[in-house]
């Protein structure tokens, strides 16, 4: 049976693209195979592990179960789009490095994309909300605490709470000195 193809027009990492895709092709396949954006990882391919997460029109999606043709007219961001022109890391990427939130690195791009959405939301998440917001991602190496700490510290810095970010301890808990200065 003949396959059906369509042309997709969208913006990927700030660049307008036009791409012919098989109508059954996933967005992961289009980004990896056609656009060579290999930060988008193929993990479970059932939408459970979060390794393929990309930002579409400001929200995180599992690109492995998102049809490429649905991307028509959409604005898509992958990890490659976060680095500066000279390859400089964004603050959330640097926080992952600083906090040791990386081991094998397979889950990292997906985690960073969701974290990017969180830290740019302008909202101060509670620890519980932050853990829930990150729960669409599976990491078999780090045990999550370092990732949680990296995201929490970056979120606080984005909110201008630089001193508070430094009070986040190794368990990700903000340790206020007594008396609490940040209320």
């Amino acid at each position, binding site marked *: *049976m*003949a*396959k*059906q193809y*369509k042309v997709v027009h969208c913006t990927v990492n700030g660049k307008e693209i036009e791409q012919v895709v098989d*109508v*059954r092709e*996933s967005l992961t396949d289009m980004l990896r195979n056609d656009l060579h954006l290999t930060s988008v990882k193929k993990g*479970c*391919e*059932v*939408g*459970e*592990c*979060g390794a393929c*997460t990309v930002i579409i029109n400001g*929200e*995180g*999606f*599992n690109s*492995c*179960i*998102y*049809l490429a*043709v*649905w991307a028509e007219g959409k604005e898509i961001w992958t990890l490659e789009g976060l680095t500066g022109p000279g390859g400089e890391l964004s603050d959330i990427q640097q926080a992952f490095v600083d906090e040791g939130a990386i081991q094998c690195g397979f889950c990292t791009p997906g985690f960073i994309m*969701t974290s990017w959405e969180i830290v740019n939301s302008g909202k101060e998440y509670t620890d519980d909300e932050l853990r*829930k*917001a990150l*729960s*669409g*991602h*599976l990491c078999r190496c780090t045990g999550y605490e370092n990732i949680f700490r990296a995201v929490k510290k970056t979120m606080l810095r984005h909110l201008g709470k630089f001193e508070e970010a430094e009070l986040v301890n190794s368990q990700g808990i903000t340790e206020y000195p007594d008396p609490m200065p940040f209320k």
Partner: protein
Amino acid sequence: MATKLLMAKSPEEAAVSKTASAAFVAGGTEVNRLGSDIAEKAETLISLKKCSGLDGIEADAGYVTIGAMCTFQDLVESDKVPGWLKEAALFMASRTKRNMATIGGNIAARRSDSYLIPALSAAGAVLELLGSDTKAERIGIVEYFDGAYDDKLITSVTVEKDIRLVSKRYANTAQSHAVLTMSAAMDEMGVYMNGAVKNVGLLHFCDLEKAFNDDPEISEDKIIEMVRTCTGLETADDMFGSDAYKRYLIAVTAFDLFKQLKGKEV
């Protein structure tokens, strides 16, 4: 395997295009996943992503009508959606997946570990369907599962807002398939209990409802014994647990939910 994709612009176009060899694709979490037998069996996929008029949440006179293409995250974020339905939507732990999965898709997929069907069934949700003749009809959600409506498009789901309903879901991890999802609702007529048991199916626990309605003070031991010896329940040993485990889980969950509905501590 599906090789054609129709991007329907309207619910009518989608409904008219539905044939036995076609399948609807809503959010994509079920049809597009690796190993999906829906995509394997269908020749044509009918995408509902660009369909107008299938989103939106309207509240009116104690009822909430939810467009079939509303995502789980839409449910969680809406002020109009009752808490019991938000709780069921949050059983899907992944936010990225909640951004995709839709209420209509979750019902139509009829999964035996469905997130929403037990709660919607216990709440007596009403579905609006559109057939290939473009005639709309409204049916109770339980009726939808008798097989006569497979080719019809779900356009909206209506639920009562102020209903007492509680749910529980058991899975190894927040991301795992659940062995049991169960909901119980209560009104002046009595208690309603529905569940989804992995690899068994969507169940309406009529005997449990009768037992609780006949004797609200029934003991947990009696409920456990009743479910253990129930001949109508076709649970089996599999990787999700033994037959005995599943029956025990159904019994103690039913008892806990009933206690919760009565306002007692579990």
